[in-house]
């Protein structure tokens, strides 16, 4: 099979996503007061309503409606104040009433968009950039911006979970029997559908990542792809570059990580290209991504569309949301990742890469903001060293320990102090790392550590010159060699000086001193 970049030179991939998000941060389910929880004993979080028992009636969760309105506002959607719930009828054991309460033609949120900034190397997947804009020079990275339109976001309830016993890998094929766990049944779910505006697997991945960051910022879900609270299906078809007509699409499922989303789509694009280039035709079907063997397999043919017999849910009155209600929800909108990144670039003159990295994690971003608040008047000056500490040392330590920021003993105030000590040359960067290691371990303030460990950097020029002169006196032949052109010996002298200061000499100053003493006369 050809590789993706090659395929994309001949073919244009047309990709749309359907993203399901469980509103896991809500206390209760969509239409009853059962708790929303992951990992409880099977069939313990159930009641007559979510079990669909005869006579039980749904009562909508107001907080869920608020969440979807917030999600719509954050993704630039029009909020439809007059909308209603529909029933989607189909028989399957995981849906207790054999219909799912969802929405019809008019969802709470319609016609939104997100702008994606794709930087190299990810940008290289899209060699042909019709309809995109080059990134501004200020972004310090080449790439492009493209707008992805959102068709709609609608509210619905999740289904339960089937557990297949006796087969391989928990799959239904070959299983002896299946059990149903209704704990998840009627968990509030929002489904976002994009227009087929994505052109590369990287764009798809970035879209989903951006969306996840937005949802996390809004606090509407824990967005765990592993636990299934964020799920993404992809629709993909190919057409020859320049062609207008859409090709036959396949629907791709089981892409339960960002990497799987990218790799699944990439595989499917290449597979379709293979089929088309060998004279075949793509069959409209649902395919399952198998991450272990890195290929997609057909789940079922979709020759005819399923008839879900949609009709308005007669147990729930249509909505007519008031302007006040929508305005109240709008007033709760926090600063979104894109706005945050722009602010970091503008206020602190950070690079696009640094600002994006900070804004990509809610905890990191608020740690940064708290740090800048402590830095106060020095914020402009300390932003860059503080960001370096945060994005390099702090994140590296988190990667190693597997902790999240809140679980460490670090505080924004202490990290600002450390950045300050380094910026003022009180500590060398090497000493800085040692102090940082102490901070992680003890949670003590940098100044306290420096004092206790006697780690002040020696930046006293006179003292350093005295030491340098003594060393030159000790090694006159080396000094002569240096002067005759063997300038590589500078490192030798600096090393001696560092040893003499027990590692606390300011290396920059020592360097300068030796150069001055050796070259000067």
């Amino acid at each position, binding site marked *: 099979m050809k590789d993706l970049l090659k395929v994309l030179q001949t073919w244009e991939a047309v990709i749309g996503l359907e993203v399901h998000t469980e509103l896991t941060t809500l206390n209760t389910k969509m239409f009853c007061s059962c708790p929303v929880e992951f990992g409880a004993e099977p069939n313990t979080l159930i009641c007559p309503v979510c079990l*669909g028992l005869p006579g039980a*009636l749904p009562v909508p969760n107001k907080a869920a409606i608020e969440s979807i309105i917030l999600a719509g506002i954050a993704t630039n959607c029009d909020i439809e104040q007059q909308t209603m719930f529909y029933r989607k009828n189909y028989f399957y054991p995981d849906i207790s009433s054999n219909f799912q309460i969802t929405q019809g033609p008019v969802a709470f949120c319609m016609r939104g968009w997100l702008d994606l900034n794709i930087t190299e190397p990810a940008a290289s997947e899209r060699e042909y950039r019709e309809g995109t804009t080059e990134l501004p020079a200020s972004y310090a990275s080449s790439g492009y911006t493209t707008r992805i339109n959102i068709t709609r976001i609608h509210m619905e309830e999740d289904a339960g979970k089937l557990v297949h016993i006796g087969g391989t890998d928990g799959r239904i094929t070959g299983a002896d029997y299946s059990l149903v766990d209704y704990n998840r049944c009627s968990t509030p779910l929002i489904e976002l559908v994009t227009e087929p505006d994505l052109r590369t697997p990287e764009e798809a991945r970035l879209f989903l990542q951006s969306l996840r960051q937005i949802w996390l910022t809004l606090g509407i879900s824990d967005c765990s792809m592993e636990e299934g609270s964020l799920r993404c299906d992809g629709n993909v078809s190919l057409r020859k570059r320049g062609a207008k007509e859409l090709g036959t699409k396949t629907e791709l499922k089981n892409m339960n990580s960002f990497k799987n989303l990218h790799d699944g789509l990439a595989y499917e694009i290449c597979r379709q290209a293979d089929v088309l280039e060998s004279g075949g035709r793509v069959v409209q079907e649902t395919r399952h991504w198998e991450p272990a063997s890195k290929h997609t397999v057909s789940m079922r043919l979709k020759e005819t569309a399923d008839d879900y017999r949609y009709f308005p849910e*007669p147990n729930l009155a249509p909505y007519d949301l008031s302007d006040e209600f929508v305005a109240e929800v709008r007033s709760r909108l926090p600063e979104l990742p894109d706005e945050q990144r722009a602010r970091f670039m503008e206020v602190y003159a950070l690079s696009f890469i640094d600002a994006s990295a900070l804004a990509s994690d809610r905890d990191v971003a608020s740690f940064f903001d708290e740090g800048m608040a402590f830095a106060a008047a020095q914020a402009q000056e300390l932003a860059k060293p503080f960001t370096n500490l945060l994005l390099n040392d702090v994140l590296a330590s988190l990667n190693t320990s597997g902790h999240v920021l809140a679980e460490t003993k670090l505080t924004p105030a202490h990290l600002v102090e450390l950045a300050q000590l380094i910026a003022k040359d009180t500590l060398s960067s090497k000493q800085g790392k040692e102090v940082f290691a102490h901070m992680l371990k003890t949670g003590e303030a940098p100044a306290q550590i420096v004092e206790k460990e006697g780690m002040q950097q020696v930046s006293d020029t006179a003292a350093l010159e005295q030491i340098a002169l003594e060393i030159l006196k000790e090694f006159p032949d080396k000094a002569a060699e240096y002067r005759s052109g063997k300038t590589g010996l500078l490192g030798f002298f600096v090393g001696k000086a560092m040893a003499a200061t027990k590692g606390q000499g300011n290396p920059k100053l020592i360097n300068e001193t030796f150069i001055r003493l050796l070259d000067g006369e």
Partner: protein
Amino acid sequence: MSYSNLSIAAIRAGLATRQFSAEELVQDALNTINIRDKVIHAFIELCPELAYRAAEKLDAALSAGEAPPLLAGATIGYKDNMNLEGTHTTCASKMLENYKSPFTATCVTKTLEAGALPLGKLNMDEFAFGSSTETSYFGCTHNPWDLERVPGGSSGGSAAAVAAGMVTVALGSDTGGSIRQPASFCGVVGFKPTYGVISRYGVVGFGSSLDQAGVFGRSVANVAETIDAMSGKDPLDCMSQDAHAVYSSSVGAGVKGMRIGIVRSYVDADGISPEIHNALEDAISKLESLGAVITEVELPNAKAALSAYHVIGPCEAFSNLSRFDGIRYGYLSPNARNLDELYEQSRAQGFGAEARRRIMLGSYLLSSGIYEQYYLPAQKVRTLITQDYHQVFEQVDALLTPTTARTAFKFGEIADPVSMYLSDIFTIPINIAGNGGMSLPVGLGEESGLPVSVQVIGPQFKDENIFRVAAALEACYPDIARIAPDTSGTQQASQAGGSAQDSQVGGSGQSSPQGESAQASPEGGAA
């Protein structure tokens, strides 16, 4: 001594003055049921333990000096689509033959909290699909006035139980006339409030946008007090609302100055029986003589109600009944080899013919391409009909119409489903519009000897108007019998009577100790 002819108010007073205990009321009612239900077959299930437990609790409270609550000591039966923990909820279907609900319907709970004594669950058409109670999986219920005739339906068991004096009141549900039509056939008061007055939580849904629970009683006052106990916003049914009315206080308020509308084309409709036509004319003149202003009004779109109903009803029913698949509860076919067979066989074997017919109809009507041709136009028609009623109720305070075109028919007399559907032509438009309506008995037909009734309809959430008109009319007919005579000893039951001719006949059936048929006044002091 029998208490079966006592009004709720009289029972309350009797309990308060310790003339009898709640326990005695239960004993008496079970005794009456034991005698009469052998041939009528109104009950699917009796719950004497629950009844005695409720009586014990009530007696204890009264002994402790508490005042009797609103429905204290009223014996009550529930249509078998209403959940009552501790009993089955079968919906008269094989599908739910063994189903016990883990929770109790709000309307049932409210009657129990008000001191009613639960006697059991009442027969009905399967899943409320029918107008005769002939589609019940558990056999027919017989009309207490003529055992060869149907009690009407779908709440036939509820109507018959009240007409036979086996309970003080009974609850039913009404999707297209399922309270008012059987009330009319059995000669009792049957009331369906405005959609939303009574919570539907725990009442098994048929057509969710049409279903409304209501009450059967032998007097307007009994019905009013029961509704007072049950009505109000329920957080578990978001379509329910507070009507902010005390219906029993409207009983006896009179009709002087009230504007009452009649639809001439209804009163003079082709196919309306002369008995019913005459009863309506008589009721009109009586109301006029009481000071009401009679106004002729038009409901131009009402004729389309039947068509809209037979689209919307099956669509909602199809979806509501999807949950019955045998997987979690209910009938499970033993022979299925895979999931599709499990669905197909369990549902084919668990549902009766009429249920299958409506499910298939709804399934067809909602399929893509068809939905646009039927469901959407039906909803538009519904809007027009609702507007008709809104306009009419700008001109009048209540409407007086027939409940049914004719009196109770015989078993098997209407075999064609479409003719059966037509028997609800005067009741269905009210469900389509969402208003309240009451069937009120005005006597026995001179020729047929069967109960003849009229229907009073009110503006939405102004059901107190209905009570005013109905109570005034009721007072005009003081001599009508409230309890059908016990014929269990003299007349052979055509179907359910097999075991009825045993010792019971000599024991008490013959003597008919209560002599209800001779009872000469509407029940109780409240009327």
